[in-house]
């Protein structure tokens, strides 16, 4: 009988309007590395937040049993006290503090209220040796690369006498060498008896490191299997398998001339200017065509889109944009809009809407000039325009003077779309257009996208949901680690095929 360290049973977690987890069961054995796989939005991170107490007991249904005892965590401190430590994708280190200070942050080695620095640094040095990080414990974290910061996080977890270590996408931001080191370290920890749960998109890693794999899809557990019985294909089909019927409106495209061509487009990270996030991308968007862009989190989808949209993300750009056969320079957002490019963000609350203003002022925000004469806005005309969008987009609100912060996600998305349609773009980039909205509103958004294509606009849809791309796109590009790894017409596209291209390693595609 194997020893079960963690049993989560019947976990259900609802957010307003969305069931994020539905009767999820997870069983982790002591001393194993257990991978959790699933598409973006499948509920992996939510499940880990339930486990670590970020969502405290009482905000979800179901039972958590750790080392044979029922647990009711009221916060992260509770779960850490029991030996469950989670390392998030965005590392939570204080950049200007030293490694040692970070390791013992919130757990200071103090005597009568004063920090014992000798003890702190000595203990930190020992932990650093354990994780194989050859740095002095007094080095400020800001001087370390992402890979080494990841190791500091693990050292921090070890300082808390971790029994169950949870890593959310630990290698997403690492290069191959650092990834390899990290995975080696995890194997070592397993041999010391520390149990690991890893959330990962990189299937080759999952296959090489984990003992067992659990698949989540749409907030439900699909299956748990021993890795020795699995293949990457089987994991992929587990992640994506669902029926596709009647969720997407019928649409026959009438494809016209080329609207935008992206040539050798390269963009670097604003925080690490020598790291390319988008590498030599070539794409073509044609009028009347809906093109999909598939890629996993961190592949550079949003970075690509925003950099094309007036260089609103990234530094050190190179490459060319050819609009209607002529090269354009869209050096800022205003110029991009004037060239007929529009970009509807994936995060409408943070980047899309002014939530404290009403619908009409949001709709007019990107093209206020069209409603103004000599710098003065015609408020009545603005109302009329917004009201027409309210009708044509079916925005459910008492009036266009309703504050957008109070609308549902689907209606907020329609306001964002209205804003961009009002700029009368030729090229419309939609980043996760249906994220966080319910099925009915999704169908409406798809219908709107089809209508826009029929009006002769070139549309690029970025989505994490492969069924969505397969359902609405005429052609799909795949992006992996900043490179285009494939271009597939709708007729030939399958989820498995796309997933294979999306997880393709860099070496395989390099010329």
């Amino acid at each position, binding site marked *: 009988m194997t020893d079960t360290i963690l049993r989560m049973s019947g976990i259900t977690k609802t957010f307003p309007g969305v069931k994020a987890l539905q009767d999820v069961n997870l069983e982790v054995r002591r001393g194993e590395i257990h991978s959790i796989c699933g598409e973006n939005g499948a509920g992996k991170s939510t499940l880990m937040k339930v486990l670590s107490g970020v969502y405290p007991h009482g905000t979800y249904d179901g039972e958590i049993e750790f080392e044979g005892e029922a647990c009711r965590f009221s916060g992260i401190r509770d779960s850490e006290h029991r030996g469950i430590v989670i390392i998030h994708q965005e590392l939570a280190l204080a950049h200007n503090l030293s490694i040692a200070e970070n390791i013992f942050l919130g757990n200071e080695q103090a005597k009568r209220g004063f920090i014992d620095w000798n003890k702190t640094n000595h203990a930190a040095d020992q932990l650093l040796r354990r994780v194989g990080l050859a740095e002095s414990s007094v080095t400020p974290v800001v001087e370390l690369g992402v890979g080494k910061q990841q190791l500091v996080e693990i050292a921090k977890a070890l300082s808390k006498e971790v029994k169950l270590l949870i890593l959310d996408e630990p290698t997403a931001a690492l290069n191959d060498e650092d990834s390899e080191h990290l995975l080696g370290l995890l194997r070592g920890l397993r041999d010391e008896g520390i149990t690991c749960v890893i959330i990962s998109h990189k299937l080759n890693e999952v296959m090489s490191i984990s003992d067992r794999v659990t698949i989540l899809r749409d907030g439900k557990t699909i299956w748990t299997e021993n890795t020795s019985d699995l293949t990457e294909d089987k994991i992929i089909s587990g992640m994506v398998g669902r029926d596709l019927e009647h969720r997407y409106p019928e649409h026959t495209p009438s494809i016209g001339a080329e609207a935008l061509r992206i040539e050798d487009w390269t963009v670097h990270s604003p925080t690490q200017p020598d790291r390319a996030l988008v590498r030599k991308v070539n794409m073509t968007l044609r009028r009347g065509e809906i093109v999909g862009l598939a890629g996993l989190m961190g592949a550079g989808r949003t970075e690509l889109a925003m950099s094309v949209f007036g260089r*609103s993300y990234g530094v050190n750009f190179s490459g060319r944009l050819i609009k209607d056969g002529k090269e354009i320079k869209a050096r*800022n957002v205003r110029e991009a809009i004037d060239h007929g490019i529009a970009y509807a963000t994936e995060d409408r609350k943070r980047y899309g809407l*002014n939530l*404290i203003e009403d619908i009409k*002022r949001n709709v007019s925000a990107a093209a206020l000039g069209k409603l*103004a004469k000599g710098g003065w806005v015609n*408020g009545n005309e603005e109302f009329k325009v917004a009201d027409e969008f309210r009708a044509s987009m079916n925005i459910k609100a008492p009036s266009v*003077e309703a504050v957008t*912060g109070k609308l549902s996600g689907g209606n907020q998305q329609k306001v964002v779309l209205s804003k961009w349609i009002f700029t009368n773009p030729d090229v419309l980039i939609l980043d996760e257009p249906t994220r966080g909205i319910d099925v009915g509103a999704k169908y409406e958004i798809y219908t709107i996208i089809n209508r826009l294509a029929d009006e002769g606009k070139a549309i690029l849809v970025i989505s994490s949901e492969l069924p969505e791309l397969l359902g609405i796109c005429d052609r799909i590009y795949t992006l992996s680690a900043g490179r285009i790894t494939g271009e597939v017409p709708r007729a030939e596209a399958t989820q498995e095929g796309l997933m294979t291209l999306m997880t393709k390693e860099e070496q395989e595609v390099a010329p």
Partner: protein
Amino acid sequence: MTVAPTNADLSVGGTGPSAPKPGKAGFKLGFDMKSSGIYIAFALIVVLFTVLTGGDMLAPQNISNIIVQNSYILVLAIGMILIIIAGHIDLSVGSVVAACGAFSAVMMVNWDLPWPIAVIATLAFGAVIGAWQGYWVAYFGIPAFIVTLAGMLLFRAITLMILGNQGIGPFPEEVRTLANGFTNGFLGNVGLGALGGADLFSIIVGLAVVVGIAVVQWRTRAGRLRYNQAVDPMWLFAVKVAVPAVLVMFVIVQLARFRNLPWVLVLLAVLVVGYTLVTNRAVFGRQIYAVGGNLQAATLSGVKVKSVVFWLFVNMGVLSALAGIIFAGRLNQANPTAGNSFELDAIAAAFIGGAAVQGGVGKVVGAITGGLIMGVINNGMSLIGAESEEVMLVKGAVLLAAVAFDVWSKRRTSAAR
């Protein structure tokens, strides 16, 4: 107690809590506690001090005093509310007031330049100061708090360099009149029965303002109806026109019985109307709210965020220069300690007047009302013989209460979401 409340309703489409059915010309209740609270509080404070002072509060001379004594703070409050709406702050305005006052004194008194040239040059000087600060905030990316804290020291130092340790004066007659003087009784007096004689010209101006308010409101309403937008029911519309009209006429009649209209009141009225129009109807005004409401969304909507912030600081510099001239003209001397703590009064006026700590919210009329609330508290408490520390205590409490109300009402609405 000036034109301020009269323009409260110049704004296009106040947002009411209950909105009409879509697509039809419906009625909505235009009474919104959050946005009206400030005017009600102002009215209550005025009534309170009127009772406490046995009516002296609203005596003709006292009303005139309140306006003239607070004019420069109100001018600053207009610039400050715009900066706060955009999500920034300006701590340097007091020092800029002093520096500009000193600059104008040197030109008018020491160099004997004609006063119109000196005034224009001073406004330009203020613009340059604003551009300096705007550059560091908008283009260099230093938080406005730091830039203007440095400015507070820098421009005070410049003032001291210009003036040494003494004041410069006296100012030309015209500048003193602008700051401290009154319109002439061009048309002589008219008898008002029991109230005695009053200046006919002032009363005609008052009537013109009232008619103006009514016409503008009516045209706005007609325009909204033409586009099938929600409007207030007729009785509420009438109240919203009548209340400011009565207030304006009351103030004007009182002023007409004293020494006619203060020139600073005329100036303030022009500024308030102008800036209210800019914030409500100009593309630039809209962009201020967009920047303060969601900086990223504004950037991604093609708003030239940096340029908006830069010009806001230039504007603040010009208004500070104007306030500097008024203040120096009123004292008839440019003084090295002029403008001390003016920034605090202007910031307090903006927040009492309904600006949000996070930016994106606020009205020019609100800031003026906030400034008047502080002015009335100052004036009323000194009339009843309160000590200055008591005045300070009350002002501090009012500021805290106003912002607490804003935070509380915001939390309540977001909880109800």
